[in-house]
């Protein structure tokens, strides 16, 4: 949430409010009526109105304050988006009336004290992520019990990048083949690792510190020299090499659909408290990226909605920040350029595809990668759907789309692509195992192949 913007608008046009004007007239009328009817108790009824008016006008502010809107540096908790209104006030101004809006939210309205400079926090809770324009603010100063009003001013919304939250995962699947000579995983080759591979005769290039003196002593005399007790050959303990895994996250940012099927047309918008498929994809991708990078693996990101590769595989904390930022800014951009071939990805990488699989493209790409020897994991990010409120034609259309999708996912599974439903619901509506359980099962299933 690093985006920041500052907008303010100094201006001053103070005027009496309707209540103040009418109260002043009331005061005059009461005083004159009391005098006319010779009734002192009516005369004094008008005095407070006039005194109030005099007092307040005598202390009328001469200028106008400034209000600046800026986004908070970071999110304190997932889903909580905050910004700050910084007020620089002028003498005489007493209150500030704020009306702050955000997409999918009702206006927040408050009357706050503005006698001193201060910061006022504004926040919304949202299930949505990505770049969002929010916190358009209408503000108006008032003084003298609200009797004097400065004309309202407007601060346009600022663009805030809401980064996806990450889910803690314990065990994740690895690629079929682990390249490299260092890393957090055990390789099948002998090399510089921890676990014992075998005991082997010392050969040129073997390290002296790896000589196993017990085995060497036990085998003394059995070598080519033949004499008992005489050391002939040295034996070394060889260990399994370590290796790192290369993971490619492939995001399908071409569509972004909400849980309410009725909002899939362009006429309706998705509610702010409902995560869309792209929000779920961002969360899933960020969670997996974090886990793999924490384990020392190299993770890259490919967005099929764009033609350039956002982030090649790399490791470390900076790469996580880079990936999360790329995920946050990815969004459907018009009609995407149709790719004729699947993007080329590093050999031996585990490919994790995040898509709704509402069309054939991503399924074809996944099958293509699987045929070329990659381990491919398809993460279905379609939210739990509701079809309440659909008319007959929309229901029919949805049934057709659903049947095609079920067939597509079945084909994927049969072609060797492993499938996970991030929201825990299978295409037929049955509850799926949780992501943690499904991932752990996949990790166990392929562990023997390394």
């Amino acid at each position, binding site marked *: 949430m690093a985006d920041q913007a500052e907008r303010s608008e100094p201006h001053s046009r103070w005027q009496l*409010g*309707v*209540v*103040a004007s*009418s*109260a002043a007239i*009331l005061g005059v*009328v009461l*005083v004159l*009526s009391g*005098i006319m*009817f010779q*009734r*002192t*108790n*009516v*005369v*004094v*009824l008008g*005095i*407070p*109105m*006039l*005194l*109030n008016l*005099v*007092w307040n*006008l*005598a202390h*009328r502010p*001469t200028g106008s304050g400034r209000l600046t809107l800026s986004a908070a540096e970071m999110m304190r908790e997932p889903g909580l988006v905050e910004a700050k209104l910084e007020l620089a006030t002028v003498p005489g101004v*007493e209150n500030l*009336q704020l009306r*702050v809006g*955000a997409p999918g*939210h*009702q*206006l*927040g*309205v*408050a*009357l*706050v*004290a503005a*006698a001193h400079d201060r910061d*006022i926090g*504004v*926040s*919304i809770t949202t299930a949505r992520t990505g770049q969002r324009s929010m*916190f358009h603010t209408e503000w*108006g100063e008032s003084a003298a*019990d*609200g009797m004097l009003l400065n004309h309202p001013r407007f601060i346009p919304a600022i663009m805030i990048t809401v980064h996806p939250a990450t889910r803690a995962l314990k065990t994740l699947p690895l690629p079929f083949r682990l390249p490299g000579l260092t890393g957090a995983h055990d390789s099948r080759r002998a090399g510089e690792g921890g676990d014992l591979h075998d005991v082997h005769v010392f050969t040129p290039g073997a390290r002296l510190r790896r000589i196993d003196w017990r085995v060497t002593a036990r085998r003394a005399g059995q070598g080519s020299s033949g004499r008992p007790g005489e050391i002939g050959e040295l034996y070394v303990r060889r260990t399994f090499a370590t290796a790192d895994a290369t993971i490619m996250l492939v995001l399908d940012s071409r569509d972004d659909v909400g*849980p*309410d099927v009725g909002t899939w047309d362009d006429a309706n918008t998705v*509610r*702010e*408290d*409902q995560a869309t498929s792209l929000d779920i994809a961002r969360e899933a991708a960020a969670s997996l990226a974090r886990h793999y990078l924490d384990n020392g693996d190299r993770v890259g990101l490919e967005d099929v909605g764009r033609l350039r590769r956002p982030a090649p595989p790399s490791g470390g904390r900076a790469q996580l920040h880079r990936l999360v930022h790329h995920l946050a800014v990815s969004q459907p951009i018009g009609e995407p350029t149709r790719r004729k071939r699947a993007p080329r990805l590093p050999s031996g990488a585990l490919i994790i595809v995040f898509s709704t699989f509402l069309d054939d493209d991503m399924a074809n790409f996944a099958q293509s990668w699987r045929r070329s020897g990659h381990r491919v994991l398809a993460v279905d990010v379609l939210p739990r759907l509701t079809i309440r*409120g659909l008319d007959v034609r929309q229901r029919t259309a949805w049934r057709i789309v659903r049947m095609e999708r079920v067939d597509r996912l079945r084909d994927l599974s049969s072609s060797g692509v492993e499938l996970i439903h991030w929201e825990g619901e299978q295409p037929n509506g049955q509850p799926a195992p949780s992501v943690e359980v499904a991932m752990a099962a996949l990790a166990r299933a392929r562990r023997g192949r390394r």
Partner: protein
Amino acid sequence: MRRRRERLLRTLRINRPAAERPLPRVTINTGAYLPAWVLRLLIGLVGLGCLAMFVVHPAIVVLGLAGLVAVLVRPASIVPALYALGLAFLLLATTPDPFAAAGFLLLLGIHLLIILCSVTAELPLVARVELTVLARPARRFVIIQLSCQGLALAAAWLAGADQTLPWIGVVAVAGLVVLVWTLALRLRMADAD
């Protein structure tokens, strides 16, 4: 039957689908606050209290209540002043005694009503009103109210003493003129700044 049940539940806001829930609201982090509806309720109570002193005819009560509803619906308008004017004329018509408690209470009530309407004028019922916002008006209210109650007492004493003081009216009008002149000068100076 099932449809009726669903309709009833939806009307009662039970089992409402997620898409039909009210949208969440942007939170403005203020200090300690009161919801604006509390102040609106206070306006209603003050208005009702003022009206209760003049229950002389059912028609007046009905008209008064209608006026009070109008005040509650449109506090940011001329309606509160009209309501206060109506109360003052009720005082004029029904309470000739200058020492009557109704006069002193109405002095308090009308002033409070106008101040509350002024503070909460443009705010919707769900708005937050920071408590510190009310501190300054409260202080001013107390000072003006104390001086006006003292003035009312003095005026009542003068009226009760049955003394004819023709110069009082002249002094009052002259005072008003001086007040308006001073005010105009100050405003002009402020505008020049």
